[in-house]
């Protein structure tokens, strides 16, 4: 059973967990369903990590496993791997002249392969480090690095292909740091 600290962890992770579920499923109903199941798993678990980041990693890994179970149950397992996209994408420099706006990113992201959505969601939405992501995905850290790079390249390519306009000069060269 969850103690009060873990309950707080769970509550604080809820939004990001839903974001990850949405990235995987591309459907807010399915994502809500997946989150609900994941939270119940946490409440039912006999033991949970006491440290916050480890607890969050457990949550995301559990949600991902639930999603994979559902994919298998729906006989989509083959599609999961066929649509992987990691073997054919070649990482390349990001084009400089794409306009990144949130709506376009959202649409382009949802068109990415499952593997690319998965890794970007863990790093960008979940806020996990490459090491944590490699643990959740059960792949080497180097694989996470190359997948992140390929996924962002695929994302930028989709944005460029969708006819986005060049960055305006005011924003060009600006840094978020």
């Amino acid at each position, binding site marked *: *059973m969850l103690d009060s600290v873990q*309950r707080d962890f*769970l*509550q604080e992770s*809820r*939004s*990001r967990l*839903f*974001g*990850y579920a*949405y990235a995987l499923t591309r459907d*807010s*109903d399915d*994502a*809500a*369903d997946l*989150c*609900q*199941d994941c*939270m*119940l*798993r946490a*409440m*039912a678990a006999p033991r949970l990590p006491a440290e916050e980041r480890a607890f969050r990693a457990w949550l995301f890994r559990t949600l991902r496993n639930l999603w994979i179970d559902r994919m298998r*149950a*729906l006989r989509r397992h083959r599609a999961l791997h066929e649509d992987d996209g990691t073997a054919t994408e070649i*990482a390349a*420099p*990001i*084009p*400089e002249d*794409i306009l*990144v*706006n*949130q709506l*376009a*990113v*959202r649409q382009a*992201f949802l068109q990415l392969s499952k593997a690319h959505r998965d890794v970007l*969601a863990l*790093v*960008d*939405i979940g*806020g996990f480090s*490459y090491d944590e992501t490699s643990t959740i995905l059960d792949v080497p850290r180097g694989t996470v*690095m*190359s997948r*992140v*790079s390929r996924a*962002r*390249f695929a*994302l*930028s390519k989709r944005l460029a292909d969708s006819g986005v306009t060049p*960055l305006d000069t005011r*924003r*060009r*060269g*600006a*840094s*978020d740091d």
Partner: protein
Amino acid sequence: MTEPPIGPETLNAYVDRELPPAAAARIARRAAREPGLAAQIATLQELRAGVAAIAPETVPLRPERSPGRLWGARAGLAAALAALTITLAAGLWQAGPERAAPADTAPLARLVAEYDAWHDTRPARALPRDIASPRMTALMEATGLALVHEDRIALADGTELRHSGFLGERDCRISLFEMPRTASGFDQPALALHGPASLMQASWTSARTRHILIARDMDKVRFATIADTLREATRSFDGDDAALIARLDAARQRCVG
């Protein structure tokens, strides 16, 4: 001398703050000198921020759905009904067809805590029938569960719930929580089933009430059958519960806890 280009993996690692400080500082110095590199970094950072903002901030409310979409008409014979129910319940659980918006963690955790607190208390004798709905009590008795616990719970937002605890053989326990429908914030006419066998939850809404069932270590088909039958009972009454009682009786299974 022209410096070699920075590989995309390294550049992404830089944006994700995954490089050692010395390597990150080298890239930062180059970016200060090379506008093209700075623009690439800025684009990566915007992509990163764009992905981070993808998830809806709030979960959309669930639209009204036809309550009859998944559940077939009542069968006349108990045996046929039992087979149908078990098949239906098993399929429902696997597919999770009617999904609830994710319950806010705090109230759900509170209900699970209430269930556990009751679960850990010494079993009481059956309560007089006039405390809870006689019809609900009779339906639960059909599946071997007697009403032994009743209390009222106030959530943090002031919502008051009625908690009814039902006890069966081998310490089978199931909690039914009922709250005013307006307090739930969304409509959920169909049944939503969630969770592993060690902690199961079902919820639905009727005309004026939101109902939530919680049980641990109960046979999934039995739990699904109880939830579906109670949902049907709370949403309609044609004066004859024989079919519902037959369905519940057929779904009796021992608890595994």
